[in-house]
């Protein structure tokens, strides 16, 4: 009898009898719950033969690689985003669902390897039930058998395979155990698939059809699947009696408790912050000194015969740009290692649980604390850390507020200007900048949630806490390298190109009066100087209509580290050795702001600093935003920053000049 009910997991259209095969290598997809060793298995199977990129036509990043299962042609292995269910809640989960459920989907896998965690089998079997319903051919890789054994849990693979009707292979990817057996099973199933082509499997267990019709068919199907899961568990799983609290539970009773939860969280965050600032600093300085010293020197001497402009372009432009990019590398490596350590050890989920309520008050997801804290060191690794947020819209929201977190490069500018203009109250001014930064993060966050991100509701916290584990070098190393390669691919071009472009602009002389040639122009008479002069009037309402200030903000767009140097350069004064003794530079700055503000220098300087805090942090931030959020959102974010910065600066000057 035909069933009139709407199937939950099959598409509305009729399934086509033959599923689409991609030309060439068969596609095998890895599917599974988060935290079950899926990516570890992927890395162990593909080794170095892998790359990460967007799935064709989607914004979802998928790692793909070639894997030679036993003899015969290698297969194209895709590590699909981890998911608890085939009812999607994010574009990542949607991709997995579409590929498995829609028989006509482009790139539909010929076979699915489902990872199932032996130490937490019930929930993994739930996803497996859904996958079996789609009728896709699959092999189960049973992971975490060692963890299960340590907890007194035994899973009988043979009876599990019998219950499911698909091959079940136990694997320990960290120790490369079971990989050959998995390869043989996959090869065998693929060979079957070739022989039986055209014969589409009927869904093995159509729970979505077998449930009574109610007002919530999806919920009823979920309950039916769990009923089946518990039947299977009763056959395949045995547990030694007396298993109560695990070691992880005991640790959690301390690390998430009322008394130790917050101190433990603060200690972990202090560690992350220290590592991304103090620990990174000497490495960054060392790399910077190496590029500025030996590399620049040998390039200069190698080019001694070349014309001055070419030497300038290559040494000051190109090598300078590469040097700036390189100084980010230690920072990114440290950040990615920390992320991998926190995730792999299991602490990240605990930290999100501990601060969930505080972050919720700010309207942000619990996990957003980490990128925001890291942002006070540097916004670039903070943006790269967005990946811990599972939901893409949340990533976009947090990615748009991170630039308002005042990074340490901005601090150097605050310190110089505060020392020159505010003397003994300089500390208060710097503190006020940080306070404003926090207010901006919260305020802009709320504004965005009320406008662009209205659909992001305060989601219920239901967070799985994986057991604590010792992170392995292989996993941490592989994840770090994968992310670093992604950063270099996207950011390298943008950073080097911008530094070179700014050098070019400041090297091209403008106007006959300058009487100098390319590459030897004082900055005042260069195209850069002229552009700064043209931009300066825009800052008149903020009290700093002056080309020196505009030029400083121009280079600040590239890197805030360069602002102090540009200020010195535009006044043809030496960069102060110590910001507290700005000397002649201080006097000239006083004169400039006195003039541009019409006698209200202090509000004008404050307005300048506020603008500097709120506008685009640097080129590397834009490049990273571009990689994490896409071009459109990056441009929108930059537009908002410039608008907010200008409005705030004007408000500070207009209101401030009423008093001072």
């Amino acid at each position, binding site marked *: 009898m035909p069933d009139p009910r709407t199937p939950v997991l099959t598409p509305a259209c009729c399934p086509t009898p033959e599923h689409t095969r991609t030309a060439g290598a068969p596609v095998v997809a890895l599917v599974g719950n988060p935290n079950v060793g899926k990516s570890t298995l992927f890395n162990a199977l593909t080794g170095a033969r892998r790359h990460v990129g967007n799935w064709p036509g989607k914004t979802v990043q998928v790692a793909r690689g070639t894997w030679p299962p036993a003899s015969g042609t290698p297969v194209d292995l895709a590590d699909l985003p981890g998911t*608890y*269910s085939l*009812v999607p*809640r994010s574009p990542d989960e949607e991709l997995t669902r579409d590929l498995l459920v829609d028989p006509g989907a482009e790139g539909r896998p010929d076979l699915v390897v489902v990872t199932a965690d032996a*130490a*937490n*089998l*019930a*929930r993994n079997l*739930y996803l497996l039930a859904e996958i079996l319903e789609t009728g896709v051919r699959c092999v189960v890789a049973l992971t975490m058998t060692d963890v299960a054994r340590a*907890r007194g*849990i035994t899973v009988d693979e043979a009876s599990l395979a019998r219950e499911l009707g698909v091959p079940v292979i136990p694997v320990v990817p960290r120790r490369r155990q079971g990989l050959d057996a998995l390869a043989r099973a996959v090869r065998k199933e693929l060979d079957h698939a070739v022989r039986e082509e055209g014969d589409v499997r009927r869904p093995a267990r159509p729970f979505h059809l077998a449930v009574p019709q109610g007002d*919530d068919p*999806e*919920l009823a199907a*979920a*309950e039916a699947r*769990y009923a089946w899961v*518990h039947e299977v568990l009763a056959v395949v799983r045995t*547990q030694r009696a007396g298993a109560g*609290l695990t070691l*992880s*539970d005991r640790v*959690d*009773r301390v690390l*998430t*408790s*009322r008394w*130790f*939860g*917050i101190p433990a*969280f603060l200690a972990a965050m202090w560690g992350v912050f220290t590592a991304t600032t103090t620990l990174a600093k000497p490495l960054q300085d060392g790399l910077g000194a190496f590029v500025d010293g030996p590399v620049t020197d040998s390039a200069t001497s190698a080019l001694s015969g070349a014309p001055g402009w070419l030497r300038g372009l290559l040494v000051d432009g190109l090598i300078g740009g590469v040097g700036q990019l390189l100084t980010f590398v230690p920072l990114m490596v440290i950040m990615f290692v920390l992320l991998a350590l926190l995730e792999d050890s299991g602490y990240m*989920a*605990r930290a999100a*649980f*501990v*601060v*969930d*309520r*505080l972050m*919720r008050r700010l309207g942000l997801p619990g996990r957003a604390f980490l990128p925001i804290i890291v942002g006070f060191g540097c916004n670039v690794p903070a943006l790269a850390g967005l990946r811990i947020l599972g939901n893409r819209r949340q990533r976009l929201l947090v990615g748009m507020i991170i630039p308002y977190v005042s990074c340490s490069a901005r601090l150097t500018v605050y310190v110089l200007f505060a020392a020159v203009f505010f003397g003994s109250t300089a500390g208060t001014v710097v503190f006020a900048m940080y306070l404003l930064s926090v207010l901006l993060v919260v305020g802009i966050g709320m504004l965005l949630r009320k406008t662009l991100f209205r659909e992001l509701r305060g*989601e*219920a*916290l*239901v*967070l*799985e*806490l*994986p*057991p604590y584990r010792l992170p392995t070098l292989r996993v941490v190393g592989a994840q770090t390298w994968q992310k670093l390669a992604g950063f270099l691919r996207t950011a390298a071009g943008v950073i080097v190109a911008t530094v070179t472009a700014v050098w070019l602009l400041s090297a091209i002389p403008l106007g006959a009066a300058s009487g100098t040639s390319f590459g030897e122009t004082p900055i005042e008479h260069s195209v850069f100087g002229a552009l700064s002069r043209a931009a300066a009037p825009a800052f008149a309402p903020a009290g700093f209509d002056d080309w020196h200030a505009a030029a400083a903000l121009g280079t600040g767009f590239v890197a805030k580290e360069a602002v102090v140097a540009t200020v010195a350069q535009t006044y043809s004064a030496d960069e102060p050795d110590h910001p507290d003794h700005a000397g002649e530079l201080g006097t000239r700055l006083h004169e400039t702001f006195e003039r541009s503000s019409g006698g209200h220098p202090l509000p004008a300087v404050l307005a300048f600093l506020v603008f500097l805090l709120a506008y685009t942090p640097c080129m590397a931030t834009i490049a990273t935003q571009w990689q994490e959020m896409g071009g459109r959102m990056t441009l929108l974010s930059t537009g908002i920053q410039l608008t907010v910065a200008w409005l705030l600066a004007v408000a500070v000057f207009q209101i401030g000049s009423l008093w001072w």
Partner: protein
Amino acid sequence: MTLRGCAPGTHARIQRITTDAQDRLRLAELGFVRGAEVRVIGRGATGGLLLALGDARVAVDDATAHAVDIEPAPAASHA
């Protein structure tokens, strides 16, 4: 009786879940279904509960815990 007020160590059986349909399905997919047994492991630093659901450990916030109607279950039985 809901999960919210339960002390660490409590064993309970889920009777129904009263959140909206979307959250209810999400909870069901993780195993929070009618008849499932949960055990309270601990309380979070700023609220919320740490629960054992079979072999899994799941953290939920107070509002979610409040939406889970339960009845006490004997400590010895296993889900």
